[in-house]
């Protein structure tokens, strides 16, 4: 066996899209505001207190950090090339309590149509493609990985992947 030291695993030089801290919506807004843009749309996904009739206590998010950063960057660039817009995006990791914001997107464009469309695109692609996982901790003490129950049927490829409807929808 070769020593693990022979590997240089990927590291995130400076996280842009993931954060362990509370998301500062004002900072995201400031990031995209411009005299050019008259339409600014935002989406916040926050932690809900229930799932399938069960009471949720908190969510625990983990990520494959370097790939999540890369994928978020790709999604933002795609949106910015498809619409004349600027996107700010942040996703939380770690333990989140009910009501905490897990993901925030702000899209600024000249007009509202583009801003809404770009904002919608980014949240849908984030949920579909970014390697982030959440674990539900229920009030009754049970703990479950979201989506893990369908792992047996998973056919591979993010496109076919069943997207959990829990958490920050």
């Amino acid at each position, binding site marked *: *066996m*070769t020593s*693990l030291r*022979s*590997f*240089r*695993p*990927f590291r995130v030089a400076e996280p842009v899209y993931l954060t362990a801290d509370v998301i500062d919506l004002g900072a995201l807004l400031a990031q995209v505001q411009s005299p050019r843009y008259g339409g600014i749309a935002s989406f916040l*996904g926050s932690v809900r207190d229930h799932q399938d009739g069960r009471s949720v206590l908190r969510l625990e*998010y*983990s*990520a*494959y950090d*370097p*790939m*999540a950063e*890369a994928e978020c960057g790709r999604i933002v660039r795609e949106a910015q090339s498809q619409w004349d817009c600027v996107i700010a995006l942040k*996703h939380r990791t770690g333990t989140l309590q009910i009501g905490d914001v*897990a*993901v925030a997107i702000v899209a600024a464009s000249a007009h509202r149509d583009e801003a809404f469309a770009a904002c919608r695109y980014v*949240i849908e692609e*984030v*949920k*579909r*493609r*970014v*390697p*982030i*996982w*959440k*674990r539900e901790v229920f009030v009754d003490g049970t703990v479950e*990985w*979201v*989506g*893990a129950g*369908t*792992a*047996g*049927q*998973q*056919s*591979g*490829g*993010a496109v076919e*992947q*069943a*997207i*959990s409807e*829990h*958490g*920050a*929808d």
Partner: protein
Amino acid sequence: MTAVASTVTVRVLLFASYAELLGSDALELVLESPARVSDALARLRAFPGGARLPAKPLCALNLTQVEPDTLLGAGDELAILPPLSGG
């Protein structure tokens, strides 16, 4: 006297439910060259708990999603990704 088969060593990362299945979030595999993603998966299935991995889990090689027939290179980082649930 048979020639010593060349090998390829890759780092495997496991996340979320898969890390719990295998009881580890990072390990290395030494595979006979040439080796594909599917060979690494077959090896993982022989580990305790590994039999419960799905037939075709989502895989990323050096941060990019790949298919099971993708060839592995020395020092590659292969990540086995459970169903995504961000947002």
